[in-house]
């Protein structure tokens, strides 16, 4: 069961489910993440590999490693 933060640069995957508390799920959904969406890891930060920039369709979203860990993905 892999999570969004385990993606490598340029790797794509599909969102399967949300984990973590309901407030985190709400925030992730509100900004646009949904089950079935394709995501691609674009860039990562220098320290600790955080934050991550993620392509979601044509939109780019930024989130921390801990936040990305709440998104379960499956290989495309």
């Amino acid at each position, binding site marked *: 069961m892999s999570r969004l933060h385990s993606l490598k640069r340029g790797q794509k995957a599909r969102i399967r489910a949300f984990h973590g508390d309901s407030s985190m799920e709400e925030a992730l959904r509100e900004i646009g993440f949904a089950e079935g969406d394709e995501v691609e890891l674009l860039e990562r930060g*220098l320290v600790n590999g955080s934050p991550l920039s993620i392509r979601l369709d*044509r*939109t780019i979203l930024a989130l921390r490693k801990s936040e990305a860990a709440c998104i379960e993905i499956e290989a495309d």
Partner: protein
Amino acid sequence: MSLEAPLATNEKSNARPQEKAFTLALVGAPNAGKTTLFNGLTGGRAKIANYPGVTVEMREGGFTTPEGRKIVLQDLPGIHGLSGRSTDARIALNAIRGEIGETPDLLLVLIDAPNLHSHLQFAFQIRSLGLPMIVVLNMIDLAKRDGVEIDLDALEKTLGVPVVATSAPRKAGREALLTAIDQALPDLARLTPPKETGRSLRDFQLQARQLSAKAVTAEPGMHRLTRTLDAILLHPFFGLVTFLAILFLVFQAVYAWAEWPMGVLDSLITSLGQGLRTVLPDNWIESLLVDGIIAGVGSVIIFLPQILVLFFFILIMEMSGYMARAAFLMDELMLRVGLNGRAFIPLLSSFACAIPGIMAARVMESERDRLTTIMIAPLMTCSARIPVYILIIGAFIPASNVGPFGLQGLVMFALYVAGIVSAVIVAFVFRRILGRGGEQSLLMELPSYKMPQLRDLLVGLWSRAKIFLRRAGTVIFTVSIVLWFLVSFPGNDLRSSFAGMIGRTIEPIFKPLGFNLEIVIALVPGMAAREVAVGALGTVYAIDGATETSEGLYAALQAGWSLPTALAFLAWYVYAPQCISTLAVVRRETNSWARMWGMTAYLFALAWFAAFITYRVALALLG
């Protein structure tokens, strides 16, 4: 001109005679282009509407539709949905529901057209509120440029409300929207979707994905340029290097670019003072005008160019899409010192002025992080301190070189660094005091890079200039007159004047810092605004007999102050708690007198100890 008159008459008054103005609200995600559309529709003429009782400041502007309907347009803070996680988002939601200010007659729901697929869910969420609305697909020109094709009819059919496409910067791009507004207003019931309750965010997402799969007929990959630029600008190493280079350029430009206009302003003000002196008879009116008003207000006005240069860069960074990247780059670093990347934008604004910085902290969802950001915002060296720094450094620090750098510039840089380092320490302490509250998420959109719109830039700069000049014209003007009076009466000797009496009463507190009576007197009006201290020193020494030119003030300072005193004064101003407007905003934003006094006390204590240590160390080293 005709636009402003009706605005003024129906402003907040319920009596709207024959001509009823409609209230429209702009609703959308943070980067959907609300500001550009607002400036395009209203011509940039906006006022900040203040609603008493609640902490809200909203931009409002007026315009007339092609059919002659009068419109009041509200620009609401950006939201992604209905959850209201941050203060800003709650304000927007309350305004939509009419709990703040005028209930909007019609919502203009902005959707970022190039990103329709992931943003369409917003339209479904707003629609569930059951309020009259028009969906506006903004930046349609950018969508077309990228090859995104959208079927408006399909969207309209499913959403059941009008859908129009706009490109906000151009007049032609806004025509469809104006026509839609004119068609909508006579029959608002037709545009009111049924209210839906109990639906989950997941439902809205499913609906939106289904519709966008149908309505987006062609969709290429993401914006190429953005991807290429991000590979450099968000690069773990080169991204940080570029970021530091940009910051360095900004601070260099604040000094280099502003030098010439400042010189011009300075000589204008000086010749105005000298001109008045030759024209007017030598009496108290001449003294009030020249020593009080021109010396006081003039010494502050000349810093307008620097403030505009700083805001020029802040606005460019915001409009181009770089600001969000800066927050991205700083996030992990700032997390380690107890803050986070989201605090970067409020703190950067605080370098211009703490007030917009403190208000910008509203975007933060975590109350603990918002409070911490507010508490340290005054430690970022605001532009009001620049006059003080420049005056003292110019008078006391030799213009020699240390290696390739000028010594004066290095001292200035050190003062900025001192503020930042203190902020890090204070943030660390505050986090301990406030405990482990809810963690602030980073979660934000990185907008695709855009060419900044000239109009938005000019409108932004003009509103900054207005705020600054209004302060100079009201607060500083008043303080200059009051101070002139206190310094001039009774008798012409500073010590025996009212100001001298006040100064001598509180002088013992400042004696250990090496501050003389003139400094103490200047600190008191400095409470109104930090830059007033310069004007106050100008007035105090002008009354004392020194001339009103800046060379005259330099000479007076050099004669009256020792070097340790000057350094201690600089150290004091790194913390300088005395700015009433900032304290008033802190009181309002935290809704707590205790927090405001707490901030005052901690800044005062830091200022006192920093000045004390600086004075003692300098005294010991310099003899």
